[in-house]
């Protein structure tokens, strides 16, 4: 998965280490071998995505894809989504919301805020693995700027 000849970095914001490990395993099984940068806290993840001063300028010469869990211990995933999509330098970064929540209003809110894909983590592992593998397919067709 490349964009403008550069490797796309996958930023995984997920507080549950088990989930993170499962997501990584399935992404790898889908044949995606891009670098994955994991974060368990929203604040630290935003420091990385938007830069320490949160101005988003760090994104000028790199290409990211964000996997976002909505329920983080330190802040709400919705806030993270809002900040990424609200910054002119980062709003083009594809954000895949990957969470256990299947509340309709929450899903709608995420799409309204500019989320590109919303995936519910099913308890049924086959469904989970399939969802991630489809995500791998999505990665291979997505036009990352």
């Amino acid at each position: 998965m490349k964009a403008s000849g550069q490797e796309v970095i996958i930023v995984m914001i997920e507080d549950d280490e088990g989930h993170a490990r499962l997501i990584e395993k399935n992404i790898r099984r889908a044949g995606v071998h891009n670098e994955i940068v994991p974060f368990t806290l929203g604040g630290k993840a935003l420091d990385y995505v938007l830069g320490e001063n949160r101005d988003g300028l760090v994104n000028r010469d790199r290409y990211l894809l964000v996997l976002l869990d909505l329920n983080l211990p330190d802040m709400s995933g919705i806030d993270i989504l809002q900040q990424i999509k609200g910054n002119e330098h980062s709003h083009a970064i594809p954000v895949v919301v990957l969470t256990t929540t299947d509340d309709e209003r929450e899903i709608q809110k995420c799409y309204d805020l500019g989320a590109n894909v919303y995936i519910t983590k099913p308890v049924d592992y086959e469904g989970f693995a399939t969802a991630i593998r489809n995500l791998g397919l999505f990665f291979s067709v997505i036009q990352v700027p």
Partner: protein
Amino acid sequence: MTSTAAFLRSSLLMLGLGILLLVGIVGYSLWLVQANREYSDETASLRLVRASIVGILTTVQDAETGERGYLLSRDASYLEPYSEAIDELPARWKALQDNLGSRPDYAITLDELKPAIDGKMAELSKSIELTRQGKYDEALALLSTDAGLRLMDRIREILNASLERTDNQLLGLVSKQLSAADSLQWVTIGGAIAILLVVGGAILVIFQHVRDLSRAREEVMALNIGLEERVNERTEDLIRANQEIQRFAYIVTHDLRAPLVNIMGFLSELDTSIKAVSAYVMADERTPGEDEIREARLAVSEDLPEAMGFIRSSTKKMDALINAILKISRDGRRKLQPERIDLKALIEANTSTVRHQLAETGGEANITAGYITSIISDRFSLEQIFGNLFDNAVKYKMPGRPLKLDIDIRPDGPRRIRIDVRDNGRGIGQQDVERVFELFRRAGEQDQQGEGIGLAHVRSLIRNLGGDVTVESDLGKGSTFILSLPTDLTKVFRSMDQ
């Protein structure tokens, strides 16, 4: 209800008492009047007795006077009083008999009088007869026997004794009449006073009842006015509680589902790893290939322990979550025990548990209190609430800045008290001021151990006490937790029961 029954009872009692008094007075008055009438009748009849006694005496004396005159003058014209007396005597005697006959005490008088009068009359008629025939000497001789005088004295004596007795009886009757009149007067005065008292008492009772009624009506009106407001308040509370339950259910199901995803996921990973291992172990006669050996080793050395580790930690996590929910539910179900509590003393005692941690960094705790600090509430809940708040304040103090705690207690409208717990800690971001009260949610930098239960617990505890907690915060400068409590928990229960 009880006041109405008491009113009925007391007014009926009053009425009954009044009626009884009046009946008594009327009865006694009637009896007195009747007695008076009897005295009057008796008086009248005694006067007749007296008149008839006087009448017979006069008649007898008239007869004697006529006889003496005739005897001296021998003139027939002097005989007139005698003739009249003789004519009148039977009527007089009859009147005397009529008036005295019914009175047994006079019976002896009549019996004694009859022969005396008869004797006297016989003596008179005999001397007159002798005079008329010209036998003056015989007539004078008859007179000088003194028999007539004695008879006359006897008559006088009997009649005077009767008169005296009659007069005494009359006097007795008069004094009886006077005392009856006196009694009547006193009974009337007493009756008037009693009536005044009963009427006054009745008016007082009615007045009190009317006042109670109007007070109750005012209360009902005030309640009616407040009812709409209370219904709205309750509706808002219900909506809020409902939203909280939904949010709680949402959080709980989400957070419980997360470890389940892990368990199911890593169980599948175990399957995958076992396949790799079994390919090696079950190879039997066939020599396993390089790849198979490498995969089997990798599975045994890395994948299997990793999967089992995650399954174990996820199970523990679920257990911890369930325990946390149980704790909140248990505290929510605990029976509250309202008692009088000095809020200031309770807060002081609670700050002392974190005092040494404050002292370590040169921090301090100040309590300022208004006039009223005494409330009726549940001690255990309040201790938990302040304990959690002070623990949090210590835990999330701004590194390098001595922690300063300011607790301010003051009245907040009628029957409510407000406690501000202000710290100069790291503060909470504006977007997180509601989130910090949610179960399993935390805010800011995650450099402290914690499960995200403390503030959720505080809010559920204080709402159980009929209060609420909110927070105002300035990120990096400090937070103020604003607690509002009813001053009397028992009144909150009562208004909930209504």
